[in-house]
């Protein structure tokens, strides 16, 4: 059984600007695969190529073992898309949006009606069935878009920033639904800026920047390989940094604090407390965010 997505040497340029540069990845059936990266890293461009709405410049891309250039309708029939931008149809109600969308997939009306009721329940919007789109909150709109993406029972679900701008309740609801979908055997590809979201959901992920992959792996492996198990944080004072330099411990200065990545936090924290005149020494587990910032730097992106 071939992989759901196979990309090799995939490249996309817009008027000389390289958005995605020679990336190679594959997505297996039943996994949640994440694309992380700062703004402008090329995540959305990659999603759009998989969705068959943006033709690739060069390289190979196969989705369900079909070529997006040759059989876009065949691929699109089997994928569900949650775009970054909310593009629900304001001329219809919640149910109207789903029914109209069902027609684009050639779903017979009776079957569409049945799926719409199920999906509205799935995203907890049954009571908003006949509500106009502009009366929905941001979280409701994102949930409705998720329901819309599922109308054709897709074999592959593609989500571009699925929980952007949502409150914690709405984010948790979406996460629960995505986990449920994976449990049912769906394959999911998503992009996100939220590293806790990626750590929670993704079986495997890549961190992208400037159109290329920096690393690929499981969230736990990436943290262990690139940062270590734990982070020690101290106040950024001349005494502390001088002491760290003297001990030969590598550290990073970040504004008013100093961070030390380590696998032996207890011993090191004790040494630091004893030797350096630090007013505060705290330890915490290393996260994907530490990996992300280490690899992509702290410079603000457009």
């Amino acid at each position, binding site marked *: 059984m071939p992989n759901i997505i196979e990309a090799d040497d995939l490249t996309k340029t817009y008027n000389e600007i390289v958005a995605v540069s020679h990336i190679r990845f594959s997505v297996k059936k039943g996994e949640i695969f994440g694309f992380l990266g700062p703004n402008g890293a090329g995540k959305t461009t990659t999603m759009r190529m998989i969705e068959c709405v*943006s033709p690739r410049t060069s390289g190979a891309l196969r989705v369900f073992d079909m070529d997006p250039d040759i059989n876009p309708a065949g691929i699109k*029939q089997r994928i569900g898309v949650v775009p970054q*931008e909310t593009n629900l149809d304001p001329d219809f109600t919640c149910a109207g949006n789903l029914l109209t*969308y069902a*027609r*684009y997939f050639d779903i017979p009306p009776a079957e569409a009606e049945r799926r719409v009721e199920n999906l509205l329940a799935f995203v907890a919007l049954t009571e908003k069935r006949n509500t106009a789109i502009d009366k929905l909150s941001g979280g409701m709109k994102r949930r409705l878009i998720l329901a819309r993406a599922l109308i054709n029972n897709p074999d592959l679900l593609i989500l571009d920033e699925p929980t952007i701008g949502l409150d914690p309740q709405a984010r948790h609801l979406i996460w629960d639904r995505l986990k449920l979908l994976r449990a049912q055997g769906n394959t999911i590809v998503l992009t996100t800026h939220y590293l806790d979201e990626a750590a929670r959901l993704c079986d495997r992920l890549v961190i992208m920047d400037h159109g290329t992959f920096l690393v690929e792996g499981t969230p736990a492996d990436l943290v262990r390989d690139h940062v270590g198990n734990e982070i020690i944080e101290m106040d950024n004072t001349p005494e502390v940094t001088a002491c760290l330099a003297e001990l030969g411990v590598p550290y990073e200065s970040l504004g008013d604090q100093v961070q030390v990545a380590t696998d032996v936090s207890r011993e090191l924290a004790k040494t630091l407390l004893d030797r350096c005149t630090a007013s505060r020494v705290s330890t915490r587990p290393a996260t994907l965010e530490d990996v992300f910032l280490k690899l992509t730097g702290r410079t603000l992106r457009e």
Partner: protein
Amino acid sequence: MPSIWSFPRITRRAGKVWQRNLDVFFKTWKVNFFPPFIEALLYLTAIGLGIGTYVGAIDGVPYIDYIAPAVLAISVMNSAFFECTYGSYVRMYYQKSFDAIIATPLSIEDVIAGELLWGATRSVISVTIMLPVLAVFGVISLPFSLLAMPLAFLGGLTFAGLAMCFTAITPSIETLNYPSFLLITPMMLFSGTFFPLSILPAILQYVALAIFPLTHLVALMRMATLPSAGALLPLNIAWIVVATIIFCIISINLMRRRLIV
């Protein structure tokens, strides 16, 4: 990247976009049905009866009968043109509806073809609402005037295609005002609508025949409603058919160029 002359691959799925627009139209049918009805009434009384009193007849045709087909043709033009400029632009740019639809098995070619068909359908709807009003005034002859409906579809498609070319290249919704005022308004006045082309200087007559689709549509409508076949019938039909094909093909290719990057 295909050229703007390449023949677009359109599937029957275009009908789903047409259906979507029809559904929205019928949701608000009360506001949509009145304008053509009122428009026909206003034109016939103000220009037909009012100005007509002074004009009397043109080429032996009572003035109100003379302008009746022009009222139909102008409505065909306006319905399709404004549907496929402002209407399509709002759906494309503000509502992001085209983006949402091309994430399904529909292609951008299907979407634009559906929009063009819908623009032409708006023209047919307008003419269908206006015909009974004209019949009650007794200014058109039946059953020949029923040809106005297929003519409305053909002419509607011409103006839909022309409109979609502008929509594909306009930087913003405001700049769509240029074709509206610089093309549609002059066309409404100088296409043999309210007075015969023959009273214009020769050069303007040629311009009207060469570049105004409305000239040909008015001529054909007038042949249907009087009824009386004109000398230029083959030219009128050929011009409209060729222009429609060219406008529709170019507009779909320009739209793909704008939206598929």
